[in-house]
């Protein structure tokens, strides 16, 4: 039973080595093999795929919680959803959370994930006090914020070693209700203006209709919000819907996506409206549907996510959206967000500017389109997100990441490259 990434592409034969103790992991690392650590299989592309996979999910104990300071010490296989289940009722929330809670703590650090509050809170590594890393030679190191290993491992895609456990700080909340404001815009200019007008709001994200053309290009629903000041702290799991099998690949086409986008856009009232929503609805809408990746059919899908520097975002996004709309290749969810400043980590994705993420099913002609989009991203000084990527070229990747040589040098010096490799790391040579 080979493991798949979330995009279900590519499908490769692999062998999983279950990690439920650090002693066992050290044994595995003694073997003359290359591995890549794997959490809950939510990265989209090939960043956690290799012939030999270290499955860290069973390594999932909570080790300590300091209820005064809100600092949790937990093993790397713990899911963010486990953390929420345990601590939301006590009035704690993750400082930074991505759009799914079904990822491991180790994965969150390795991808240095970010969320709707990036512009005020930064990446996941901001809440990491320290972590333990097992290096290529089986040694265990405590990695603190001031070390190079911290800069390389946060966002380092599991290529510096295996994260064993971490101490993270949580954020106090007084309610599980989020006061949400939805702003409906008519074009890209209005969208940008809305983002900047609501920059003071801690959480913001926009859903954008990427099949809109001409005047309407860049029209969106911008959703911003913050936790209510007081209220209940209950956090009950709602029953989930499930996609029980892969949809036939024709289910998703230009027409069905257009219809979906039309419905989604039109159900929202015009202008500015306000709603009260719960944590799962606001932060994790897609987690309510198990196996939603199956709607793209059995050949799988990919998510294309890039970011452009703020001053050139408007021009670049316009060019990219025009290209996508002209191609007619559908994407249910195109997510646009304004990010805050970049951190110092070598491979963390966010820089100050606008990021767009789009899902595409794998089909002929897609990679040519994405190559063409890459050219625009490079032209405007942007970069591609490794956690979503399955096909970017070494050259495109490199052009966006200024610290790449430091990362490569460290990998060589510490012999990390002899032990930790993914399909992706080989492709982009990191």
């Amino acid at each position, binding site marked *: *039973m080979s493991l798949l990434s979330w995009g279900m592409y590519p499908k490769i034969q692999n062998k999983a080595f*279950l990690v*439920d103790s650090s002693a066992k992991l050290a044994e595995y690392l003694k073997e003359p093999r290359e591995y890549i650590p794997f959490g809950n299989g939510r990265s989209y592309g090939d960043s956690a795929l290799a012939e030999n996979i270290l499955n860290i999910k*069973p390594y*999932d*104990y*909570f*080790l*300590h*919680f300091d209820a005064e300071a809100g600092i949790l010490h937990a093993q790397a296989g713990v899911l963010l959803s*486990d953390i929420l*289940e*345990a601590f939301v009722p006590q009035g704690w929330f993750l400082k930074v959370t991505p759009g799914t809670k079904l990822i491991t703590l180790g994965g969150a650090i390795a991808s240095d994930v970010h969320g709707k509050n990036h512009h005020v809170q930064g990446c996941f590594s901001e809440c990491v006090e320290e972590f333990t890393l097992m290096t290529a030679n089986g040694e265990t190191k405590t990695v603190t914020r001031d070390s190079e290993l911290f800069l390389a491992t946060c966002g380092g895609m599991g290529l510096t070693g295996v994260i064993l456990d971490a101490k993270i700080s949580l954020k106090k909340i007084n309610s599980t209700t989020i006061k949400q404001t939805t702003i409906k815009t008519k074009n890209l200019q209005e969208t940008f203006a809305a983002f900047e007008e609501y920059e003071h709001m801690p959480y913001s994200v926009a859903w954008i209709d990427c099949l809109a053309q001409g005047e309407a290009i860049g029209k969106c629903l911008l959703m911003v919000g913050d936790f209510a000041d007081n209220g209940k702290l209950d956090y009950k799991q709602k029953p989930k819907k499930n996609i029980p099998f892969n949809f036939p690949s024709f289910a998703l086409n230009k027409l069905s996506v257009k219809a979906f986008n039309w419905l989604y856009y039109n159900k929202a009232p015009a202008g500015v409206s306000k709603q009260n929503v719960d944590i799962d609805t606001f932060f994790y809408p897609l987690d309510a549907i198990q196996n939603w990746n199956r709607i793209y059919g059995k050949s799988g899908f990919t998510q294309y996510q890039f970011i452009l520097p703020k001053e050139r975002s408007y021009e670049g996004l316009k060019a990219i959206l025009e290209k996508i709309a002209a191609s007619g290749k559908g994407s249910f969810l195109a997510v646009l967000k304004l990010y805050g400043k970049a951190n110092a980590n070598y491979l963390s994705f966010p820089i100050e500017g606008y990021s767009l993420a789009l899902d595409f099913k794998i089909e002929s002609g897609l990679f040519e389109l994405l190559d063409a989009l890459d050219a625009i991203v490079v032209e405007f000084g942007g970069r591609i997100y490794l956690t979503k990527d399955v096909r970017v070229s070494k050259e495109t990747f490199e052009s966006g990441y200024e610290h790449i040589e430091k990362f490569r040098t460290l990998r060589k010096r510490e012999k990390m490259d002899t032990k930790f490799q993914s399909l992706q790391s080989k492709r982009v040579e990191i």
Partner: protein
Amino acid sequence: MSYILIIGAKSDIAKELARVYAKNGYDLYLAGRNIDELQNFSEDIKIRSGRNVILKELDITDFTTHLDFYAKLEPKPLGVIVVSGYMTEQSIAQTQWSESLNTINVNYTGAVSLLNIVANEMQESRNGFIVGVSSVAGDRGRKANYIYGSTKAAFSAYLSGLRNRLYEYDVHVLTVKPGFVATKMTANLELPEKLTAQASDVANDIFKAQQSKKNTLYTKWIWRYIMLIITHIPEFLFKKMSI
């Protein structure tokens, strides 16, 4: 809050059960051999759920200790879940008597020894429930693992009788028959994905079945139908088959 006693607490299914019951507000007695190895795990549960977890040393094959073990539990558990099990390769079990005997003692004799004591107390107090984790392997003996299977057949029959006996005392007995489960024990086997359950799913199924007083739970559910077919193959054909 009420305590649940989990026997054989070190297995993957047992650990998931512990998490599910703790999450739903129960305190736990976790029993097994070298139970101190679960120290970190019990911390984990306490942090996750805020429930009490008490580790209890128990050797299911050391029958003479069982009476004393149960007598010392205070408060008495509301529910007792037997997850302890032992399986070795059939080829080893059929050639080494000590392996056969251990399979029988862990899976059947030990469970009976302990559950007799539990059942008597629950009958007396007219309160409680018992869950026994048996196996689909007990539904029909196959050459591939009939020594293990026969102990589970005996255990299933025992649980069925116990359910019948305790019904009038309002004590419910659930028989669990898992099919393939992805655990440490099966990590190196090539199991068919569609038929293989995750330990956490098995635990959730058990919790739901116990709460709704189901009698027999197959998990995954499809195993009920697979075993229905297997048990209906005529013996004159079955004896020639390799399944």
